[in-house]
């Protein structure tokens, strides 16, 4: 298992290098630059050139990338051009908010999604199965930006149960968590249901029926456990989502977090922040995938054997 972990970890190095190059290229190839947002009405073209040179934006892109990558390897993501603060501090200040929102949303998605998927399989082809799956399908197709506003209208404006926005109290987390989490519930419930139905058709399940075990014992004790493998894969991929999956939701709910920081930086083309945030999100996805793979390997010896 340790060897498997090391091999997977080494694989991340080339992935990281490619990702960093793609991140840098995307940020710099998009039209616009931060200098436009720094100039004041009345600034001269010479002042523009002066600022461009000051931030090294007049140097060839490859050189800029080299300088940035060197800094990254030294743990320095540079200083924000517009916000004039170290990017690392900005990320660290916003990360706890994103982790709280994303982590709770993931926990909500996983627990509710698995429970609904399991129940839908248990009551397969019943009115419960059909109606829950239809609602979930509808939920998955609703843009979470719109869902967020709908949540605010119902639970904050009409019922007055929760604050409309902000991060000043713990209850301000409820609506954003539900909004982000509901999208995940749909996916996880569908994957759980599909995997359980697939498992339920396997020989060992017929054997369990033949041995006289109750339906509940078979489904909850055996089928669900075997069906969790693809669910774990999905959850692994969703760990990246814990860090940055709530970009638009942070915006709608006026919450601090990496999403809000990224959107604000994108609008102002504050390159160091955009690069720093995207890099963080990329690393989170990479690590999430790694955790998912390791969890799968731990659960299924065939995967470990396959890597030998």
């Amino acid at each position, binding site marked *: 298992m340790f060897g498997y972990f090391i091999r997977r970890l080494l694989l991340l190095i080339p992935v990281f290098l490619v990702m960093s190059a793609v991140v840098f290229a995307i940020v710099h190839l998009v039209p*616009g630059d931060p200098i436009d947002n720094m100039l*004041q009405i009345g600034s001269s073209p010479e002042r523009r050139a002066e600022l461009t040179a000051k931030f090294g934006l007049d140097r060839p892109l490859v050189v800029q990338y080299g300088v940035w990558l060197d800094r990254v390897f030294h743990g320095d993501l540079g200083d924000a051009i517009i916000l004039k603060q170290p990017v690392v501090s900005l990320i660290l200040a916003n990360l706890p908010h994103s982790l709280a929102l994303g982590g709770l949303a993931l926990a909500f998605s996983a627990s509710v999604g698995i429970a609904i998927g399991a129940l839908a399989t248990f009551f397969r082809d019943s009115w419960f199965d059909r109606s829950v799956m239809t609602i979930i399908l509808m939920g998955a197709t609703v843009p979470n930006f719109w869902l967020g506003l709908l949540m605010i209208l119902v639970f904050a404006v009409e019922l007055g149960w929760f604050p*409309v926005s902000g991060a000043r109290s713990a209850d301000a987390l409820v609506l954003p968590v539900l909004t982000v989490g509901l999208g995940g519930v749909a996916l996880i419930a569908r994957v759980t249901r599909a995997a359980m139905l697939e498992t339920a058709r396997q020989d060992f399940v017929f054997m369990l029926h033949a041995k006289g075990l109750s339906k509940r014992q078979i489904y909850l004790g055996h089928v669900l456990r075997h069906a969790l493998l693809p669910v774990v894969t999905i959850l692994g991929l969703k760990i990246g989502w814990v860090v940055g999956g709530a970009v638009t939701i942070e915006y709608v709910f006026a919450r601090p977090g990496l999403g809000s920081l990224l959107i604000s930086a994108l609008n102002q083309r504050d390159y160091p922040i955009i690069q720093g945030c995207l890099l963080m999100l990329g690393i989170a996805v990479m690590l999430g995938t790694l955790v998912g793979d390791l969890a799968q390997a731990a659960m299924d010896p065939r995967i470990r054997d396959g890597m030998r």
Partner: protein
Amino acid sequence: MQTLTRLALLTVSALACSCSALLAQEATFAVTAREVGAPSYNPITGTRLNSANSLIFDRLLLQDTDQSFHGALATSWEQTPDGMQWTFKLKPGVTFHDGEPFNAKTIEWWIPKFAGTENAYMVANIDKVEVVDDLTVRFLMKAPDPNLLFNLASSFMGIPAPKAYDELGDKFGVTAAVGTGPYKMQSFTVGQSTVLVRNDAYTWGSDLSVNRGPAKIKTITVREIAEDSTAFLELQTGGVDLLYTVPTDFLPRLKAEKSIKVMMIPGTEIVYMPINVTVEPFTDIKVRAAAAYAVNQKAIWQTLYGGVGAPANSFLISSLQESRIDPKVAIAYDPDRSKKLLDEAGWTVGPDGVRVKNGQKLQVKLWTSNGTEFKRITEAVQAQLKDVGIQADITVFDPSSINAQYKKKTEHQLAVRSYSWTNADIIDWFFSGKRLGYPNVSMLNDPKAEELNDLAMTKARTWDERVANFKAYHEYILSQYAFAPIYEPANIFAYSTRKLKLPEVVRGTRLTSQTILDAEVTK
């Protein structure tokens, strides 16, 4: 018995008074999209400052709605006839939040701090600052600058405390911001909120406020809410007590709320359609004029904005003297003239209603920025252009991308954009031949315009001369049909009457400290 009654009445009055004093004088204000993400409260180096800035820093002067100047930290000022010296008398007894005194030496320290910053141009004509006495300061000028008073009244002219500024360096305005304003900055989280606490020593408010200080509200939290709908719902539910900018879309719903008062002050913004004069078919002035006359300002004002704000017929906001131009050059909707001009330019109506010349359709690009309001105006303009036979294809960009596209100089033809500024020098910014592509999106660069620009920007000695020169420059730009004016929005803000009481009349060009000084929490 009488004595007892009197005593009872006195007790009740005393209780009422103490209850009022005991009211939690705390309020939450919110700034929306345009002001979200201002990186600091450093007026010297900042290029984006939000509304809380005026509560922390005082300026020498303030400008009223009618563009007149009023003393803030200055009590009086005078200019020598040749415009080469300005003398300012300063208010006595003013101190910074850190206890340091404000005096002539502060100004002597402050003006040179602008060197090398984005705001340096505002004091570029000041050669030297001379301390006459403790409360008198003289500016010796390199050249006459009739715009000096406007610049000194700008929000970037808030005066920071020298000691704190020098000690904090780049951190000034981020970790702490020290001024002489009615509020002290307690905390600031960029993009999220700023907490301000009352400066109890403040007694030097301007004559634009009834209350000269201290402020009545003890603590103000200024939240930054990027999404307009969320900000609106916060105001509706009482999460926010005052909203600095209300999008026109929400006006009908806010007006229907009994506990919310909507207030409007004259606008500082113009929405317009620049026309690229260097790209076919707009190299022909008749086609440019036709496009400009096709825009129905009144229809847009009434249908999209419900009659709030005003239709625009020139490039400047209506409160500026330089906007009072010769009516002959004002651009107003005239479809017949538009069609006639297109006929004269050789563009004839084709079978599908789109004009044709030499087998080529009159089909042009119409660019705009993302955002519901921009898209709506652009769609209206598209329909109006179609009515005279111009087919305009809309492309939507994000604000940073669109500026980069303009810099390519020949890619764009028409666009819908806006600016917010309260001085005629905005014409220089958007039409000077030195800034082709962006911000001179119209790409106008002819000798006559440059000559008039030079006169307006550098040759005036007095305010009246400056107004006359800018008026001539403005009229010339209009005569070249380098743009079509569209709409002049009003500045709209709203507050909860359940919680706040604000003066009936808002003084100043924006909702700033002079109004907040008079505001109080009522519940």
